């Protein structure tokens, strides 16, 4: 490396070259995502974008973090470093390493997220790593999809792949891949998706080598260094603006799926001191028998992502290792935020992933009120596994369709219909026309519903109603990635919390309430009804502009009663206009 270092020292880092190389790396990462997106066959990847990619330096420092799920890539430096250790002296150009293991050096969030890592060499020297990680259709275990409760231990949740070379010097190790595919339920489709991911890492390698051919190793690394330095300086400046002190936040998931109806808490103390920030999760609950545990790397990814959200949006395009350096995440071993082998982690990206982010956002909203961010609607992603009578084949339905909406931020109402906080809106919903063509379900209704979001000066995005009928076989439904029937997401600065959500199965005209974190039977002809709340509000609803409340009423996002009870706004039903006098009186009474 000394040769490289002196080359860096001599390299020019004029602003145009820095910007060009930076954009190029970001673009290469986006191109990776595009390839996976375009070629994968798994609904979660191809349509809903449950996929992440990135580029790291040989030492595990983050270079480019474009769109993706924070939990899938923000903590990937840990995995890169442990792979370097495991394969010390045995890494070559053309190798690809697969892991999905939360333990054993994999530092992975949960088993369905498979990550393909590729070392990138230039003239024999390992300079970069690239990673494509995506949620697989299946990863073995007791039930499909990975989000089922009550696994005995991590081994019950699926096949555990520690960092394993699956491509060696450009040659697929077919026996190993066959062993792996033989342990999942849709080997053919999984094979397609795995090739898509491997192709993406190969494209990144080509792009990076072309970049180095053009500029030389020294300049490329110097520019990465320069961008990291600039980003770090800007982020430190951002942190310095936050008043020094300790701010607390806490959030809970409804239960752990094994010990029922007992919320599990994540608690954080955020200490800002000068230009550094410490996120200390030491007060959180101990790790659980149930599947809501989070390994350190996953907690780290979600916690850092939440902190980034509160930074100046002008920095949003530039985050890299420089962003991470001033932030320390403390999570003692054995807690729900740093669980140890063989704890189950199936629900981790949602629970307690969401709670990690909510706790940090709640704390930071106290520290920087003008960047307050309320909780988003909880994830409501049920997994159905059954048989499609049209093809006679088994299927698993995984979806973000039934989520509510985002929480409000200071200055704006919440986004409409984006999926839960840990996705940061990077995943999408499907089209009815695509879903009904693929799966034996008929969607009966899919619309926003009134009065099911956190009121505020800025309110959460609207709640959403989804109802569909099973035209396929009997099967099962896992509500493991669902949350929010009991514990509400927080509102900030006087905004109201996000209301609770509901799920029902209607059978023979009877509605059965289905709680989160359960595994239930589903029959042909059943109707599944999902009533999902929007996010929390920001600022007191009594401060909301009455004309905005009226507009919501006219658009049937808020009812006339809701306007009166939650916002203190009186609307005359006949003329459909605000009665300002009555409104003032009502709001005065409310204090």
């Amino acid at each position, binding site marked *: 490396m000394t040769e490289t270092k002196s080359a860096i020292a001599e390299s020019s880092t004029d602003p145009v070259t820095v*910007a*060009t190389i930076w954009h*190029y790396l970001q673009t290469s990462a986006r191109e990776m995502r595009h390839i996976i997106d*375009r070629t994968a*066959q798994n609904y979660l990847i191809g349509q809903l974008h449950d996929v992440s990619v990135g580029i790291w330096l040989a030492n595990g420092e983050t270079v480019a973090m474009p769109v993706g799920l924070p939990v899938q890539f923000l903590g990937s430096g840990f995995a890169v470093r442990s792979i370097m250790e495991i394969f010390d002296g045995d890494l070559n150009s053309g190798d690809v390493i697969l892991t999905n293991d939360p333990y054993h050096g994999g530092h992975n969030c949960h088993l369905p997220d498979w990550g393909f890592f590729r070392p990138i060499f230039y003239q024999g020297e390992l300079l970069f790593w690239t990673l494509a990680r995506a949620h697989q259709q299946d990863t073995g275990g007791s039930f499909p999809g990975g989000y089922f409760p009550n696994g005995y231990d991590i081994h019950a949740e699926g096949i555990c792949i520690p960092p394993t070379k699956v491509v060696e010097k450009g040659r697929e190790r077919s026996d190993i891949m066959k062993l792996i595919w033989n342990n999942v339920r849709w080997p053919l489709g999984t094979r397609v998706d795995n090739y*898509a991911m491997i192709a993406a890492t190969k494209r990144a390698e080509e792009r990076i080598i072309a970049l180095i051919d*053009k500029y030389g190793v020294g300049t490329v690394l110097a520019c990465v260094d320069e961008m990291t330095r600039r980003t770090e300086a800007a982020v430190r400046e951002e942190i310095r603006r936050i008043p020094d002190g300790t701010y607390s936040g806490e959030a809970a998931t409804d239960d752990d799926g094994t010990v029922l109806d007992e919320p599990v808490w994540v608690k954080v103390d955020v200490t800002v001191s000068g230009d550094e920030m410490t996120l200390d999760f030491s007060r959180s609950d101990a790790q659980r028998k149930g599947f809501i545990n989070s390994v350190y790397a996953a907690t780290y990814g979600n916690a850092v992502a939440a902190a980034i959200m509160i930074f100046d949006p002008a920095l949003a395009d530039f985050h890299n290792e420089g962003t991470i350096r001033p932030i320390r995440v403390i999570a003692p071993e054995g807690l729900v935020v740093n669980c140890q082998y063989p704890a189950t982690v199936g629900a981790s990206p949602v629970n307690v992933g969401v709670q990690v982010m909510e706790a940090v956002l709640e704390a930071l909203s106290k520290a920087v009120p003008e960047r307050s961010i309320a909780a988003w609607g909880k994830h409501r992603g049920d997994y159905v596994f059954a048989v499609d009578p049209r093809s006679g084949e088994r299927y698993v339905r995984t979806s973000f369709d039934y989520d509510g909406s985002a929480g409000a931020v200071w200055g704006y109402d919440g986004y409409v219909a984006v999926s839960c906080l840990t996705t*940061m809106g990077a995943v999408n919903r499907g089209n009815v026309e695509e879903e009904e063509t693929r799966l034996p379900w008929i969607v009966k209704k899919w619309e926003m519903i009134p009065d099911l979001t956190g009121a505020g000066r800025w309110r959460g995005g609207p709640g959403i109603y989804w109802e569909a009928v099973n035209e396929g076989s009997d099967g099962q439904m896992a509500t493991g990635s669902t949350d929010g029937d009991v514990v509400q997401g927080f509102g900030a600065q006087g905004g109201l919390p996000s209301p609770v959500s509901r799920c029902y199965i209607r059978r023979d005209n009877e509605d059965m309430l289905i709680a989160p974190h359960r595994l239930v039977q589903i029959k042909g002809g059943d109707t599944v009804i999902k009533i999902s709340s929007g996010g929390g509000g920001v600022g007191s609803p009594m401060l909301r502009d009455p004309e905005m409340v009226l507009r919501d009423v006219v658009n049937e996002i808020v009812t006339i009663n809701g306007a009166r009870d939650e916002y203190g706004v009186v609307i005359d039903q006949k003329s459909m206009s605000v009665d300002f006098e009555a409104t003032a009186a009502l709001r005065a009474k409310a204090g």
Partner: protein
Amino acid sequence: MKRVSIDVGGTFTDCLVLDDGGLREFKAPTTPADPVRGVLDSLSKAAIASNQTIEGFLEQVEILIHGTTLAINTLLTGRGAKTGMITTENFRDVIEMRRGLRDQDVSMFDIFVPPYEPLVERRWRIGVPERLRYTGEVLQALDEEAVWRAAERLKAEGVNSLAVCFLYSFVNNHHEKRAAEICEEVFGAGRVTSSHEILPVWREFERFSTTAVSAYVQPVVADYLDRLQSRLHQERFGGNLLMMLANGLVQTVDQCKGRAVYLLGSGPAAAPSAALNLSAPFAGGDLISVDMGGTSFDICAIRRGEIPMTTESWVGNHRVAIKMVDVHSIGAGGGSIAWIDSLGLLRVGPQSAGADPGPACYGHGSSEPTVTDADLVLGYVPADYFLGGSISLSEESARAAVDTVGRQLGMETEEAAQAIFETVNAHMADLITEVCTRRGLDVRDFTMVVGGGAGPVHAAFLADQLGIGTVFVPSVAALYSAFGMLSMDLGRDFARSHVSRVDKVDPALVASLYEEMEDEALAEFAPMGIGRDRINFTRTAEMRYIGQFHEVEVPIPNGTVTQGTLEGSVQALHQRHQDLYSFSMEWMPAQFLTFRLLATAARAPFDLQRLEEGAEESPAIKRVRRCRWNGRELETRVYDGDAMGAGTLIEGPAIVEEKTTTVVIPEGFTCQVDPFRNYVLRKSLVNASGNGKRASDSLGGRR
């Protein structure tokens, strides 16, 4: 006979006339309140130039090709119709939930942005009972009474354009058609837009959103086209009026009236073909086409001579899924207004002074500083020869306007002008970088082809910033898109979705789909007297491996469709998949999704006139003017472009003035005139000398 193209931009209306006398350019101010007037003004200018009355002139025009920014401006400025939507009951929020997508241009880490505002407010989206299965089978019959009630309610509420969007209308359009008929009875013809007509392709969000956009701009566009047509007929125009469309083709007015969304990229979609056409003999086909007019800055990256197309456009915040020429645009132009933001920083655009009142230097009463005002203060554009002197610019007004931001920045007038100039350049350079790198291209491998009134003033500075070595300024730079339209093919693309495995598809059915589309195309060409022998059909199909979510487009041979033809397409899928994504999967079965047909009739080719070689040894120094170059004031040579011969070589800093264009050549660049009077600007690596006749330097050496 004459061929005329007219491009209505945000600021100017460009008119290009091609006849035996060659190519002639005319410009008139755009008249936003009634754009028809600007079109007629530009035609009057052309008529006067050939000593004709406008009637006499128009009688000789065989084809008039027209591009307009009307649709896109209507959409981006939110001035479209009060639009309603009638849709499948229980699904009225498709265009507002928009699949949970966040704004495309906003980083995932930036969440301080307002929620999306759909073009049709929720209160005006009404669901009616009806439902189809994915096969097209009717699950629930259309409740016609409900359609009547909904249409009448929307009409009573003052809605004046309607989108009719039902699930699966691309498989079975009966419900949608019937509902549209009822709505037309209530609203009148031309006010109802159906999704199966706009984009008969599956996936309801993309189809509904595109349809809503179309309905939103429809009344404004249709009213304009009606008025334009009737005015032209009044003036004895008897030729074909063709519209430039987003997909890079031209179409008769009647055929595009009901599909207003296709006029979104009208104008800008023509620029890439101008770039290719003009620079073909010169550059290799790796081109960045940039067009900087008064209001917007459009760019397109052309690789190996292939104009990029996309079905993945977002226009503003709205998803538009029709196939469009892949042109990217930002609000940066000569009319862009400079302002100070809440952090005390200088910003330029996206607001534009437009045509009226125009930049402060026009003297029409605006006191807001624009890019053109800065250009004038810096000495780059001539006060007395802007558009050949047809608009005289007031330097005093420009300076006063620039001072309004200068004072807030604590800068002298010239400094402030320099800051405005550099800010808008950086903004444009970023867009170019973004567009290139998004496709994995390095901007430095490209030649920049520059159009638009303000383009040649700024281009060399942009190139310098981006490391682009060569800038090509066509002689028709100021009427860039208009030129592109003249060389455009007439045509339309058609699509039919039919989801089927390749090994199970019925060739006869595929044949009938192509036949249907070909018949439709023939019927559209017939009124123009174009028969089958002159039409080129290009068949393609969108295919994928079973289970994938995205398609690739592969060619399908013309002629009889057999099982063999269709199986051949599988080989094409493997190849295309390999090219695009670096792998293919021969072991996976494949399926068809959408069959596409492109029907075109080639325009007659034309030649540009060649310049005489070398005209004269000491060309054309017109005058000397004080200009500011990176903070230094220099007496700068100004050349008369209209008097320069082919091969003439000029060294920067210098300025070339033409009637419609001012080319600014900064220090470190040379400029050579090519045989078609285009200017080729090159960054000089060393002191360029040798090839080419040097323009004489009456100032006695470089300063």
